[in-house]
Every structure is written in C-alpha cells, then in structure tokens.
C-alpha cells in the first residue's frame, strides 16, 4: 500500500466504552416515567385480588366522584375492543387460544388481572380512587400447578381448552421408535425435573403513555418496548383497528427487558383508547408488585426425562415429555417458546440418534409465561445437561468425558439434529470444553473432592460442567413463519445508512437497544466498513417514525440480523461512492479502490477522494455521472439464511455447608464461542449479566404461588434477585469459531451466559451431594432444600 494511505485502525474487536453510558450515568436518560406531556393524566389499574372468579358486579360510582378523577372504565366499556393477539402459535397442531382482554370482562383468571382503570389528574389521586371501586366476585377454584391443571376435575380456565391444555406438540422420531431404543439401551435412566418459574425483573418496570391528537387523528404511544414496530402493527391492526399510518410508537430509554418487553400488553392499546375518550394524554406506569403479578414470567416446566446410553456413556436415545405452564392466557409468543425454541434444542451439543419430545402447553391461574432471557434454550439445556450427568452417574464415566464422547464433531457441520431445528451452522466443542476444564483445574478439583469426602469435612465440594449450544440470530422468515414454525410474521431486520453532505453519517435501524449498547457496537461496524470517524456516526432507533421496520431485540438477533442489515447498507453506500469517485477521478469504476474512507484509482494512490469529498459531490449534485441520483444513502432489508449457534462450556465449583445447606460458588469458569466479537467489553458484560441470571435461577430465584393463586413472592422482599455480593468472580475466556451465516462471522451473545450457567451450578450442587445418594435436586437450591436433601439422601 502506498505511503499516503494510512493503515486503518480497526474498531471492530476493540473494547470501546459505551457511548450510551455518560447519559445514563449522569441521570440524563429519558425513561418512560420521565415523559411529561402538557395536560398529562394518570391511569391506575384496579387488579383482581383473587385468582379465579366471576365478576358479579362492579360499582364505580364512588370512585368517579373522588378528587381529581377524570374517568373510570371497566371491561364493559371496552367490550368492542379486540383481545390481544397471540402472534406465535405452536406449529402443526391445534392451539386452543385464549388471550387477555384489555380489562377483564365477566371473569378474572389470575391475581392481578386488570378489572378497571381510573384516570385522574395525579397518579396519587388515581391510586386513591381505586379504593372507591366496589367489585363483587363469585369465587371459583384456582389451579396454579400445570401437573394439577391437566388432571380430570381440575378447575377449567377457558371453555375452548379442555383440561386446560393449550396445545400438544411433538418433534423428533416417533415415540415408539424411541421407546424401542430406550428399551434396548445398556443403561437407562429416568428423572423428573422442574425448571421453576422466574420473574424477569427488569430494572425498569413497564409502562405506556398514550396521546391522541383529534386534529390529525394521529396516535402516539410511548412504551417500554423491545419491539416498537411490532407493537405499532399489532395495536393498530389487531387490537384497536387504527390505520397503521396514523400510529407512531416510541420506545424511550428502556431499562432492561430480558424478554418481558417483547410482548403486547393491555396498557398499550388502553392508554391510546383512553386518550381518545378523554382528550388528554394518559400515562400508566406499573409499580414493582404489578410488574411481578402481571408482566410475563419465564420458564415453569415440569419434564420427565428418559435417557438411554451405552455402558461407556454414549447416549443412544432421549425421550422428553414436558408440561409448560403458560399462565392464565396466551402471551404474544408463548407457544413458540415452549416448542420451537425448547423442543427443537434438547439435543444440545450431542449426536443423539433417537429423540422424541412431547410438549403440552397448560393454562393455570397464574401470570402469563413467555420468553425470558434464553427463552426455551435454558430449559432445553437444563434437560440435556442434567441428563448427561445422570448418564455419568449411571455409567461411572466422568461427566466431562460423557460430553466429550457425545459431542457433534467439527466435520459434522452444518449438522442436523433431526428434531426440526435448522442445521447448526458451525462448531468446535472440544476446545471450549478443554479450555474450561483447564481454567478450572478440573483434575485437581476431583482430587480435592475425594480428599474432602475421605476426611468428612463440613464443607462439601461440588464440581459442575455444562456444555451448551443455543440458537441465535432468529430467524429465516420462511422457516420461522406461519408456513413453518408458526410465527405470525417474518423475522428480518432493516437499516438505512445515510451519509450527509458534510460527510457525517446517520444510521436508522429497525433493531433497537434496551440496555445492550447497540449504538456503540453498530457505530464500530460502520466506522470500519465505511472508513469514517466513529464520532461522525449517529445510530438512530426506537421511534417508528424515522426508522425502517424492525421485529425487535430478542433472541440474540440484533447484531447478527440487524447489524448485518447495517453492514450491507454500508456496502451499498460504498458501491455508490465508488461510482461517483470514478466519475470525479475520471476513471473506470472497476479501477477504483475504496479503503478506510478513501477512494483512488488502482496504482495512483496520491489522487484520493475521501468519503467526505464524495458525499459533498453527491449532495450538491453539480456533477454526477449520467443517470445517478443525488444523495448517498442505502437501505437494506435483510432476511438471514440460517440462525447462528454459539456454544461453550461452563464449569462451576461450589461449597455446600453441611450444617446449614448454604451453597457458595467458589469458582466459576465460562469459555464461550460467539464467533467474531465486535466489542469484547460489551460481550463480557452480556456474559456477566447472563451468568448472574443463570446462577440466580439455580440458587435464588423462584416465583411461588399459594394453592389459592396468591403470588407469595410478589415483592423484592420475598423474590431473591441476586446482589453483587451474592455472585462469584467470573473467569471468562473465548474460543472463536466463525459462521458463514452473516458476513461478520458473529453469532450472538445476549443469552448464552444464562443458558450455559444454570446447569453448571445445578450439576455442581448435585455433585456435592452425590456421595450422600442424591441424584437430582430441583431448583432453586435454597439452604433448606439442600439441607433436607443431605438429611434424606436421595431427594
């Protein structure tokens, strides 16, 4: 390269500090509850105190006359508004769909079901007036456990769902084939496991602000949203019947979501309806207990596992039968999580010849369950990784060795597991396992454990290994869509890259953040690819007015799908820039070299046109090539050809207090492979947060309902969110196996930490107790549960 062309300093791969943080750290963010509109009014929701009842009467007279009250509405007032839709039903089977109305009409089915709304001049007055509404109920029996709900004689939630069954879905080989393989297996193990219900607990709860402007008949909705374009579409077309061009949805700064803000909630259409009815902007913002009661929960599976293996630990058959508790109604994508993202991933990292998966979705008188960080893959990984340890226990083969013997090999990729998932794109599982074992000091740990057991120490040592693969970058529209996996739309992303006259760059992205750092990561990609300074690039998002359509941020898809749309738009801009540069340099387009923001004729590097020169000419347009339009901008709608499949191995080491049952993690190693990494600091952050949530499932978190449907863990005083002091130091490393699914070779990192960690902790705790006869223990591993397991031996 000639001397005048500087070597580029690539930003991709650099741990650049997040450009989002100064605003957030100085309290300058603009979150939902920061929004103040002239004439704002405030909505408060009267919620059901009982889990299952017929509403026999509602009297709002007193509330209407309380100070500051502008309006009080019940389900009767909204009877002609459609219920919320379910946008992802399980594919290929009948779904007995029952979705929530904006306000309950005639019947409530969970504690927290919205019954009435008060709108008042202040949020205090609105909440005071809730006490002025009188509701009479005829209480019905409630059922909260999916195993009880499917029994004959159980309370029935919906007329169209006999035995409370939403759907019955299967995948893999037929059951008889797998039964035969199990029957013929040298070693056969069966185990029932629970994957307990979790409450997502984003730092910011949910809320909505609605504004209707009569003069233009336009609606604006501000919402704590992971998917504003989808919320616009659904609220307009499916719930309220508003012309889609008349509604604008804005996600302001969003304080985390972990999946819970993907979905369409009652308050989104409600605040718009109220604003039109009352002629005032209306704000609703849930408090933490409302968030716990009524925003979606995650997991809640009861699963029977049967696994067959050879005496040397090769898995020959796997049969999985799961009851997925989906709550009182179907949330937006709930059936798809329990099927496509769960059932089709139970093979994990392993070549297993005979797999049958059976999933029943179940209604209960509990909060709706939908995608929560990992969404199906944590449940699948928990099943297969506990199964591997059960095989190890039954065969006497070391758990790490069981995994190694069953891994899909590098030459097998792309690999089809035979249970309906897209082929795994690429992988190399052994190096990640070896590196994790090496960092953990696995051999030495086994010796320490043997020594402690021999000495009868009061601190039991447990070592847990979890190898995982997950599906990211969802998804090719043709595969995931209605004709395939049942998703009611596509899953592409779009981006527009615009170079201004001054050479500064705006990217409008359909993909958006709710805490991840999209602005930083996306700007790194554009800076390198277009060759403009990082600070010259603005990433715009989260407002449906001004950004192209996007399906939202979930499924670790923002970089691999949304980022690829940006990458391809940059390439289109560069192509046009080269054409214009050729014209400016009086050369043939095919002779133009474009690197690092500069164009020159091959062999003549001294005559350079910068992207800034080119952008100026593109906009003033005094001298464009014949037929070229002014401007320098490109849009891409990108539909991925496959999903991506990151993987890794986590090793957790615990000490269990023999006297109290308390579990302490004394070492945590994660070796992950997410392909190429754009910003390693952000990826590390994703793993730190993800592992924290995964550890929390194993040790701390669990939503508990009383038999009558009361949520016992309805506040943070009872539901244990991990504090920093309750978590270990993470020792993280990476291997890099790229993918050809997208041009960046990146696989996605948002959920892998959560997926890999929970089974590692679970396996460690069970391992610590294994010499006492414990083969399995359900989570969370509260001190009492562990103490009882030690008292009882096999639990």
């Amino acid at each position, binding site marked *: 390269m000639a001397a005048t062309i500087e070597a580029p300093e690539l930003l991709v791969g650099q741990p650049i500090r997040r450009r989002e943080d100064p605003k957030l750290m100085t309290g300058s963010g603009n979150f939902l509850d920061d929004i103040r509109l002239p004439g704002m009014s405030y909505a*408060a929701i009267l919620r059901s105190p009982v889990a299952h009842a017929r509403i026999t009467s509602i009297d709002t007279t007193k509330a209407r006359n309380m100070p500051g009250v502008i309006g009080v509405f019940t389900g009767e007032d909204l009877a002609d508004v459609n219920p919320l839709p379910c946008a992802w039903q399980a594919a290929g089977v009948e779904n007995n769909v029952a979705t929530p109305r904006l306000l309950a009409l005639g019947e409530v089915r969970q504690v927290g079901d919205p019954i009435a709304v008060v709108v008042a001049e202040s*949020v*205090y007055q609105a*909440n*005071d007036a809730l006490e002025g509404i009188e509701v009479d109920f005829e209480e019905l029996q409630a059922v909260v456990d999916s195993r009880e709900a499917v029994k004959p004689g159980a309370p029935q939630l919906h007329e169209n769902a006999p035995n409370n069954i939403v759907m019955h879905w299967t995948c893999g080989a037929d059951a008889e084939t797998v039964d035969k393989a199990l029957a013929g297996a040298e070693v056969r193990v069966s185990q029932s496991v629970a994957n307990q219900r979790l409450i997502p607990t984003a730092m910011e709860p949910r809320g909505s602000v609605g504004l209707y402007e009569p003069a233009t008949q336009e609606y604006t909705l501000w919402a704590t949203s992971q998917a504003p374009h989808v919320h616009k579409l659904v609220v307009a077309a499916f719930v309220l019947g508003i012309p889609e061009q008349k509604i604008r949805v804005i996600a302001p700064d969003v304080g985390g979501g972990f999946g819970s803000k993907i979905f369409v909630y009652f308050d989104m259409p409600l605040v718009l309806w109220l604003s039109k009815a009352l002629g005032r902007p209306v704000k609703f913002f849930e*408090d*933490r*207990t409302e968030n716990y009661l009524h925003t979606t929960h995650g997991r809640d599976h009861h699963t029977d596992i049967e696994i067959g293996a050879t005496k040397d630990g090769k898995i020959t058959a796997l049969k999985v039968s799961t009851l997925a508790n989906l709550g009182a109604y179907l949330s937006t994508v709930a059936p798809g999580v329990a099927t496509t993202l769960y059932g089709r991933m139970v093979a994990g990292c392993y070549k297993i010849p005979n797999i049958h998966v059976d999933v029943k979705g179940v209604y209960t008188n509990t909060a709706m369950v939908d995608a929560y960080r990992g969404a199906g893959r944590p449940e699948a990984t928990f099943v297969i990784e506990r199964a591997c340890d059960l095989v190890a226990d039954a065969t006497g083969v070391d758990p790490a060795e069981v995994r190694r013997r069953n891994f899909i090999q590098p030459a097998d990729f792309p690999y089809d597991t035979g249970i309906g998932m897209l082929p795994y794109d690429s992988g190399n599982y052994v190096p990640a396992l070896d590196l994790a074992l090496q960092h953990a000091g696995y051999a030495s740990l086994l010796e320490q454990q043997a020594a402690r057991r021999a000495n009868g120490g009061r601190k039991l040592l447990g070592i847990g290994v979890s190898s995982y693969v997950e599906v990211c970058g969802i998804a090719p529209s043709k595969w995931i869509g209605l004709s395939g996996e049942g998703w009611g739309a596509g899953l592409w992303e779009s981006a527009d890259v615009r170079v201004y006259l001054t050479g500064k760059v705006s990217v409008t992205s359909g993909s958006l953040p709710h805490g991840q750092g999209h602005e930083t990561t996306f700007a790194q990609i554009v800076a390198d690819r277009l060759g403009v300074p990082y600070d010259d690039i603005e990433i715009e998002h989260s407002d449906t007015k001004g950004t192209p359509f996007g399906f939202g941020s979930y499924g670790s898809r923002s970089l691999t799908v949304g980022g690829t749309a940006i990458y391809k738009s940059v390439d289109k801009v560069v192509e046009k820039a080269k054409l214009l540069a050729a014209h400016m340099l009086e050369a043939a387009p095919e002779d133009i070299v474009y690197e690092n923001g500069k164009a020159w004729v091959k062999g003549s590097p001294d005559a350079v046109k910068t992207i800034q020169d080119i952008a100026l000419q593109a906009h003033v347009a005094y001298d464009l090539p014949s037929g070229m339009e002014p401007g320098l901008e490109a849009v891409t709608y990108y539909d991925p050809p496959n999903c991506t499949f990151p993987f890794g191995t986590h090793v957790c080491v615990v000490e269990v207090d023999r*006297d*109290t049952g*308390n579990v302490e993690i004394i070492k945590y190693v994660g070796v992950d492979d997410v392909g190429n990494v754009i910003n390693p600091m952000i990826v590390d952050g994703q793993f730190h947060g993800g592992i924290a949530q995964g550890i929390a499932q194993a*040790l*701390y978190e669990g939503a*508990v309902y009383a038999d009558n449907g009361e949520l*016992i*863990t309805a*506040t*943070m*005083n*009872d*539901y*244990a*969110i*991990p*504090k920093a002091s*309750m978590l270990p130091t993470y020792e993280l490393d990476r291997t890099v196996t790229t993918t050809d699914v997208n041009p960046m070779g990146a696989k996605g990192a948002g959920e892998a930490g959560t997926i890999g960690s929970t089974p590692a902790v679970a396996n460690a705790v069970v391992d610590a107790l294994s010499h006492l006869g414990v083969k399995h223990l359900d989570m969370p591993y*509260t*001190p*009492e549960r562990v*103490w*009882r397991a030690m008292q009882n031996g096999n639990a």
Partner: protein
Amino acid sequence: MFPNQFEYQRPDSVQAAAGLLAADPDAKLLAGGHSLIPAMKLRLASPSSLVDLGGIEGLVGIDAAGTIAIGAMTTYAMLRDSRELSRVLPMVTDAADNVGDPAVQARGTLGGALAHSDPAADFTAIFLALNGSVDVTGTNGTRTIGADDLFVDLFTTALQPDEIITSVSFPAPDSGTGMAYEKFRHPASGYAVVGVAAVVTTGSDGNVASARIAITGAPSKATRASESEQLLQGKKLNDESIAAAAAAAANGLDINGDHFASEEYRRHLVGVLTGRALTRAAAGM
C-alpha cells in the same frame, strides 16, 4: 407504590414530638424510614401524620467511655464506622455492617430498629444479648426500659403511644467478655432468617459467669435462649459446653416458618448459629 395522603411534621424537640403523638393516635414517628416508608408505599401502613425526628438536636452520637450511650437517631453507618465502639462492643459494629445494604445503613437508625421490633431485625437481638436499656420520653416525662422488658410481640414494644426512644445504653462489658452475632441472611430481604447474638463473660476461674444469648428471625420477637444460658452458667466454655448450649437453644421457643425456611429448618439453624456465635465469642475473649 403510592402511599395514602398524610401530614408531615418536623418538631424541634422530643417533648413537642411526644405532644404530636399524644394528640393524634394515628401519627407515626419517622426516623430512618426504611421500614415505615416501604410499608406506606404498599399501603400496609397509612398513618395520618409523620412526625419526623430528624429536626431534633441531641439524638445522634456515640459515647463509649464507661457505659456506652448511643443517640436513638444514630444510623447503622455511624455504628459501623465507629472505631471506639468497635473496641468495646465489636458485635455492634459487625452487625451494623450486616444490616441491609449501604443505603439502608446510611438511613436506618438504632432507635428506629428497637421501636419497630421487627421479628427479623438484627439489633433487637444485639440489644437483648448486651442487656441494653432505652431512655424514653413521653408527655408524662422520661423513664428507662430494660432489655428484657422492651419487646412485647411482633412489631409491639412496651413503649406507650406517645413515648419516644431518645437514647440506647449498654453496660461496659466486664473483662473476660466475648461477643458475636451470627446471621443467616434472607437472600431477598437481607433480614435475618435466623440471627443469634451471644455475649459471654468468664470469671477469673475460667468458668462462665454470665451468658446472654438472644435469637431473632425465628420467634415473633427477639427472645433469649434461657435454657442455653443456664447450661453454660459456671461451665468452662469449650466445644462440649457450646454443643450442649447450641442443642438447647431452640428449646421453648415458638418458631415461625414460611415458604423460604420452615419452622423445622429455622429451629435447626438456631442451634447451628448459636454454636457458631458462642465459638466466635469464646475466641474473642
């Protein structure tokens, strides 16, 4: 998370505060507010008026020369950071560092904790084990209430409705005294699932001259483990006597259970933590 409407008053003397309480039975004192305000936000408490003690001088401070006197509005953070206190009553600074989190420690007060008598509070047990006393002022004057008389039941004390704790006193420990507080934290609330405070003094003969052991978290109010105390009296403090005391610690206690920790498990923890507290106390003599 929106409390009912309430009045707010900020008197400048204890007498004035007592007068406000006497005039309005639904008024509540506001000290650190870290129990009261959350209860109000959940509308579990709806006082007509808050009487803020923050404007009254003389309720904050630690005097550790001789009898230890601590102002009722002294925060956990002040207890935690007091070097002179850590020399004479190390259990107090240690426990203060284990209350809630730094935000709670910065606002929560010693007097507030004792007056609230939360069944899972730490300092109720500390106070009982250290044989403290509180000076209180009401409209009828002042009086002193001893440790064994203050806690009546769940969230209930011997304070009259118009009485305010002004200071908390602890006798200076005799030489040969060891003390320790063992806490099993609830992972969500940070409160004690079970907490055991043990204060043991041995005489010149090496035998236990006095032992006070107080349990929190398990019973409905901080309660002494009387049987364990008696078992230790006159004995050498060693593994054997500690084990015997630990085994008896839950005897006679009415123990609560919930979904996180059953009565049986809490009973077990009372024994384990009593043993640990006594072992640490013995090591600190």
